[in-house]
């Protein structure tokens, strides 16, 4: 394992531990603002943070905690922001769903589905006007890409040959409806082909592989001066079964926001034992034993941060 791979693995773990501690605070009803945890989304956020150049800027959506952490926010600064305290990451002025951090490269965040996409097109165009070699990243999801702004943004980006990478975090859910319940399938590969836009699909939560793929794509975007779409298959972890007389095994509840009632912090903070959990995937690394040994001390340290 290289030093960078080791760093990436620790970042995934740090993100998961931080989110589980935030989940504990949600359980204690500490926050009045709605918080959308992103457990299961850590790998792509850590990869993007590792790939971006200093001038690159990122625009986020309502589920953004994984990027905040990957871009360097401390657990305490996030906790205080969600508690709307002046010591929060944005001075307690933005809460969770609209939390940006321009100093760290997170220029703009919007809670409105599809809203950040055209803004990203403007940010990317501004970089062109400045003759810079920055790439703009914008994060959206399989729900937001149903909005017209997604297609308008593809058209604007390609027409201006803007260097922008749209990251579609496809967790298959839009609040409480699955893709199969609400719409026809959308073949993003075909759509991007129609626009002559680069397309990449990622799955498996292998962060070093994500980094390599994103680095190559970023370079392609720079060299060819055009945008790209990355579709990332992932699952928002924290789903649970709610007791319900109509469902003998409990009614399945997909995790959307707020408390993940059955998710709790243990010495090894995995939530499921397959490729959909980025923490579980870390066990396949050569450094797994060291990571397992490190996790309890990291948990203790981060817990003390909030004490």
């Amino acid at each position: 394992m290289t030093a960078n791979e080791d760093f990436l693995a620790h970042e995934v773990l740090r993100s998961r531990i931080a989110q589980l501690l935030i989940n504990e605070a949600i359980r204690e009803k500490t926050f009045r603002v709605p918080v959308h945890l992103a457990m299961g989304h850590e790998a792509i956020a850590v990869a993007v943070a590792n790939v971006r150049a200093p001038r690159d800027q990122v625009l986020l959506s309502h589920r953004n905690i994984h990027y905040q952490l990957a871009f360097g926010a401390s657990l305490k600064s996030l906790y205080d922001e969600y508690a709307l305290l002046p010591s929060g990451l944005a001075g307690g002025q933005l809460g969770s769903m609209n939390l940006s951090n321009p100093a760290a490269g997170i220029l703009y965040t919007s809670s409105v589905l599809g809203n950040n996409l055209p803004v990203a097109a403007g940010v990317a165009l501004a970089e062109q006007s400045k003759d810079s070699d920055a790439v703009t990243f914008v994060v959206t999801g399989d729900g937001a890409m149903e909005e017209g702004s997604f297609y308008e943004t593809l058209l604007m980006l390609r027409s201006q040959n803007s260097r922008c990478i749209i990251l579609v975090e496809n967790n298959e859910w839009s609040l409480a409806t699955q893709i199969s319940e609400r719409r026809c399938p959308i073949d993003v590969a075909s759509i991007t082909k129609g626009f002559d836009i680069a397309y990449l699909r990622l799955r498996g939560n292998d962060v070093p592989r994500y980094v390599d793929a994103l680095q190559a794509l970023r370079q392609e975007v720079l060299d060819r001066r055009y945008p790209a779409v990355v579709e990332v298959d992932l699952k928002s972890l924290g789903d649970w079964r709610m007791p319900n007389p109509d469902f003998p095994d409990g009614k399945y509840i997909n995790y959307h926001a707020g408390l993940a009632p059955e998710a709790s912090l243990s010495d090894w903070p995995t939530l499921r034992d397959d490729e959909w959990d980025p923490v579980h995937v870390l066990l396949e690394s050569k450094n797994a034993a060291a990571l397992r040994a490190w996790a309890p001390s990291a948990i203790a340290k981060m817990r003390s941060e909030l004490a």
Partner: protein
Amino acid sequence: MKYVELINQTLKAQLQSGPKSVLYGQNVAAGSCLGGLTRGIAATKSLRVINTTNTENGLFGLGLGLMLNGVNAVFAMKQHDFMLLGIDQLTNTHYGIQNRKLTAGFTVLTVVVDSGFEGPQAALNNLAEIASIARIPCLTVNSAPEVEWAIKTQLMAPGPRIIAVSQRLYHTPVLTQECVKAVSNGLFQHDAGSDVTVVSYNFTLPQTLKLVDALKEKGRSSDVFLVADMMGADLAPVLESARKNGRLLVIDDSKTLTPPSMALLCDVQGALDGVKRVYLRRVAPADWFVPNADEFVLDHDDIARQLGL
């Protein structure tokens, strides 16, 4: 010189000599260039000019993104109803960046379709409500002083705004009357007098000045104000004038049920005790929605009678 020609020339000089900017919109550099509004404005080292796609919602976000990233943006549009498609960006994005320290501006330069012959589009001669929900400055230009002010001082000021021009006035000779007093906060005084205070909103300055001339023929003089920033102008000079003259006439051709001019009359009731008030505004007839000449005609004799002049 025609109204649209003055705006075009002022815009061209400002954009081509100003800081790094992007002028964009559908057909801004093609065809008639929005009926001459953006004609001849070519790209320079600091100015990018883009004929855009027909993606209005996206184009509002584009401008806000340019502004957020430190580049001035001017989105010129042929018809103000395009703003309906960008209302998410104008409201939610603007709300989200309220506390940012911005270094660049985003101006929506729109033609208000107020000639009436467009039917439903003309019925939306109602910028006030868009500006109100977006909570951004909304500037209307009627005459040369406001053109100079809006384009030279506001176009690239940090933050977002709407600057609106009138389609009805497009090819009319631009009013060049010197202002008695041009107030920097968006309130312009076009004449001074002692019998009545006349306040013009939206695009009513031409009719207002004709009315004032008619009153002069009756030996009556007027303080004439134009509220060019309908959301943000400080109206204290208007109230002071009205108390001095004892008569206040407010004229507004906005097609809205909640015109900003109403605030002048409603929010300051105590301040206008003893002042005779006449309010001329649009009501909502069915013909707002069908093509017609739709002229906001002032009956000079009737107004003089209502004012007791």
